[in-house]
């Protein structure tokens, strides 16, 4: 099976593109608006991905890697090779994308039933899957950057799917523009690396880094530039502002892109470029991730919109992964990416299912005022929507880090990494504090969400009779992904729920960093291994304390949230208003920019245009008036007309000779002859 992986991955890459092209051109005219085209394409990629995944198990080689590249652009010294790289990370990631994408396609057939742009929605899903697979398969920064932008475009298109709503249109613009900020850094990073090494391919870059072709300062800046791209895409602080707004898109899209795959692209990039990040760059990465993790978690506590809670939770979990990359345990980051993709996508599907039911119930009651996403209007759905409830509960256990669930393993690996990092560098003790703090808060707000939605008494008893479990197309993905929240899938062939040891750790082994002076993979792993038990105990303790607090507050009502909110005072309002980030960006970034722009516009219009340009106009006008006068009175009237007049005068006097009488002419001839003869005779 030499090249079979490359062939399969080419098919996996281009099938969704084909579906996109068919859908965008013919979708509306096909039966069922062509959703079966997209679904069959995506199911085929899923089958191929599973085949590759099984192939990976057959090989069971941690260093397995196949590469295929071709020259895309050859201009003498400037040559760009593009290509595909298939290794274990790629295969796992392809499976994640294909699986979540398939679930999203199937889920969407119900969730978007009767939507006016149904076929276009599926077309965009195909475009997204194509571009995401492109990122995953790239073996070089150049094509990764291209697909990176394509992912941004499809995100823009899908967030703005209901662009009639102003909020959706604005959210899509915000997502696109915020990503641009990161992508500029990404591009600068690529260019820096290219100038130093002369290649875009990962293998060449790593070789160049290890041989010291690139200076460490340049490498730090380049690494931070690349990481800025990852920050934009993975919505890290301070570029996190777009992700919560992106929830304006359809919920299955939120599950696919803004929870499982697209936002993971930044983490994926960080994992790929980890070997070239210098210690300084890694430190920045770790702190950005840590701050994002704790900061987003504190916002999620007070949000009332069910999707907003999940959005901030996603930001926080992505912060975890980025922090893990920064502390060196980047395989743990990738592991968390994998588990998080499953349980977070499932949580979004669950919220979609709940919103769907709310929508339906409110529609029955002709209530168009109540927000179907607000958790304050829910409660007590447990018996009405048992499948949604149970599968969401499994995923909530996973994200909260309860043992026996997938999130526990991956989160534990990350926390062990941060602990060991803090043991190596005691001055960075804040990082594990961020990590464990975020873990406790995560457990609290996730259970708050569950309790508010599914337990207790209904806040709106009148709609309860119309709340129904969602159709099979929606519960199917829920059951599948809910079961994937259980640890067993990730530790096979071993059954120890306390250890991550399993196929993943066998197949995805950490590589040494190529930057001279960084800790080697063995050292990092040793440290993490030592910290493992301590991390595990603390993380179990914080997870259960978070859950307990949520239980006491929302089920037993020992404390009421309102009292605590009052006690917390301004902290509560900060969290509720997302630390006023949008407002502050508006005040300190957008408004000054706008003011500056209007100042410049004033200079441009009122000064430059009005005085300089218009002045030029006036001078030209004046000059042309003078020239016109000279032209008219001088040249025209005297010279040109004068010529005419002279000709006229002469003509008038000479024309008398032309009598038209033949005899006169003969007379002239005769006279002429006579004159000639007289002249002759002298």
């Amino acid at each position, binding site marked *: 099976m030499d090249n079979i992986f490359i062939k399969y991955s080419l098919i996996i890459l281009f099938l969704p593109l084909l579906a996109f092209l068919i859908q965008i051109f013919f979708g509306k005219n096909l039966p069922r608006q062509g959703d079966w085209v997209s679904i069959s394409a995506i199911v085929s990629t899923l089958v191929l991905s599973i085949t590759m995944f099984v192939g990976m198990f057959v090989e069971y080689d941690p260093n397995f890697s196949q590469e295929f590249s071709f020259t895309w652009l050859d201009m003498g010294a400037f040559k760009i090779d593009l290509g595909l790289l298939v290794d274990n990370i790629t295969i796992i990631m392809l499976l994640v994308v294909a699986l979540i994408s398939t679930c999203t396609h199937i889920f969407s057939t119900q969730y978007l039933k009767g939507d006016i742009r149904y076929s276009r929605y599926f077309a965009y899903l195909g475009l997204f899957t194509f571009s995401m697979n492109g990122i995953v398969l790239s073996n070089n920064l150049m094509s990764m950057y291209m697909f990176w932008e394509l992912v941004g475009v499809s995100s823009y298109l899908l967030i703005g799917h209901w662009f009639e709503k102003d909020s959706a249109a604005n959210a899509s613009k915000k997502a696109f523009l915020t990503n641009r900020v990161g992508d500029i850094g990404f591009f600068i990073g690529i260019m820096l690396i290219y100038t130093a090494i002369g290649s875009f391919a990962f293998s060449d870059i790593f070789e160049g880094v290890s041989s010291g072709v690139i200076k460490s300062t340049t490498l730090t800046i380049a690494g931070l530039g690349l990481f800025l791209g990852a920050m934009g895409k993975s919505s890290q602080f301070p570029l996190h502002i777009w992700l919560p707004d992106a929830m304006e898109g359809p919920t299955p899209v939120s599950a696919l892109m803004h929870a499982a795959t697209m936002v993971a692209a930044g983490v994926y990039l960080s994992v790929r470029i980890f070997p070239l990040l210098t210690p300084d760059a890694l430190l920045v990465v770790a702190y950005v991730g840590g701050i994002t993790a704790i900061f987003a978690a504190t916002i999620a506590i007070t949000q009332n919109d069910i999707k907003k809670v999940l959005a901030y939770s996603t930001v926080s979990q992505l912060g975890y992964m980025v922090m893990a990359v920064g502390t060196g345990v980047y395989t743990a980051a990738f592991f968390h990416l994998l588990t998080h993709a499953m349980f977070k996508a499932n949580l979004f599907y669950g919220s979609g299912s709940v919103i769907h039911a709310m929508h339906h119930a409110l529609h029955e009651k002709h209530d168009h005022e109540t927000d179907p996403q607000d958790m304050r209007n829910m409660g007590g759905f447990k018996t009405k929507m048992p499948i949604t409830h149970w599968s969401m509960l499994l995923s909530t256990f996973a994200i909260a880090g309860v043992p026996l669930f997938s999130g526990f393993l991956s989160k534990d690996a990350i926390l062990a990494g941060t602990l060991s990092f803090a043991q190596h560098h005691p001055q960075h003790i804040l990082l594990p504090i961020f990590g464990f703090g975020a873990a406790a808060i995560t457990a609290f707000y996730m259970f708050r969400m569950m309790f508010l939605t599914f337990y207790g008494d209904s806040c709106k008893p009148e709609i309860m009779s119309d709340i129904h479990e969602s159709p099979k197309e929606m519960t199917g993905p829920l059951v599948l992904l809910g079961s994937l929240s259980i640890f067993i899938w990730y530790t096979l062939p071993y059954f120890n729920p306390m250890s991550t040891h399993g196929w993943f750790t066998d197949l995805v082994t950490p590589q040494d960093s190529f930057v001279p002076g960084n800790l080697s993979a063995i050292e990092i792993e040793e440290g993490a291994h030592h910290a493992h038990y301590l991390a595990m105990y603390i993380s179990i303790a914080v997870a259960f304390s978070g859950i307990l607090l949520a239980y006491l507050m929302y089920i037993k009502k020992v404390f009421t949230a309102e009292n605590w909110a009052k006690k917390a005072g301004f902290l509560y309002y900060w969290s509720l208003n997302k630390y006023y980030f949008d407002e502050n960006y508006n005040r300190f970034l957008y408004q000054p920019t706008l003011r500056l722009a209007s100042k410049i516009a004033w200079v441009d219009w009122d000064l430059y245009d009005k005085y300089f340009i218009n002045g030029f106009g006036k001078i030209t006008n004046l000059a042309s008036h003078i020239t016109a006068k000279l032209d008219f009175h001088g040249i025209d009237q005297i010279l040109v007309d004068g010529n005419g007049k002279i000709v006229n005068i002469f003509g008038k006097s000479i024309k008398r000779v032309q009598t038209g009488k033949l*005899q006169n002419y003969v007379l002239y001839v*005769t006279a002429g002859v006579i004159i000639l003869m007289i002249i002759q005779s002298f």
Partner: protein
Amino acid sequence: MDQLNNYLFIAAALFSLGVFGVMTRRNGIAVLMGVELILNAANINFVAFSRFGGMNFDGHIFGLFVIVLAAAEAAVALAIVINIYNNLNTINVDDASSLKN
């Protein structure tokens, strides 16, 4: 009488009479007659030079050509004059000025 000059004088006189006729007459026919006189003056010159210039019969042949041409010219010109008369009821050449202006 066998002098070239005599012939030339006669031819000159005839030519002058013809030119005078062309210049002074207003009658189309009279103008034509003047033209004929000029042509015949030229003919006399041709023949005279041929006779006294030691040449062969070249001049005679030229003279014959001129006569033929004159006949043709007279026919065309008379036709023109008749047309003018038909259209304008006069053969005064000064009145035939409708192309003027």
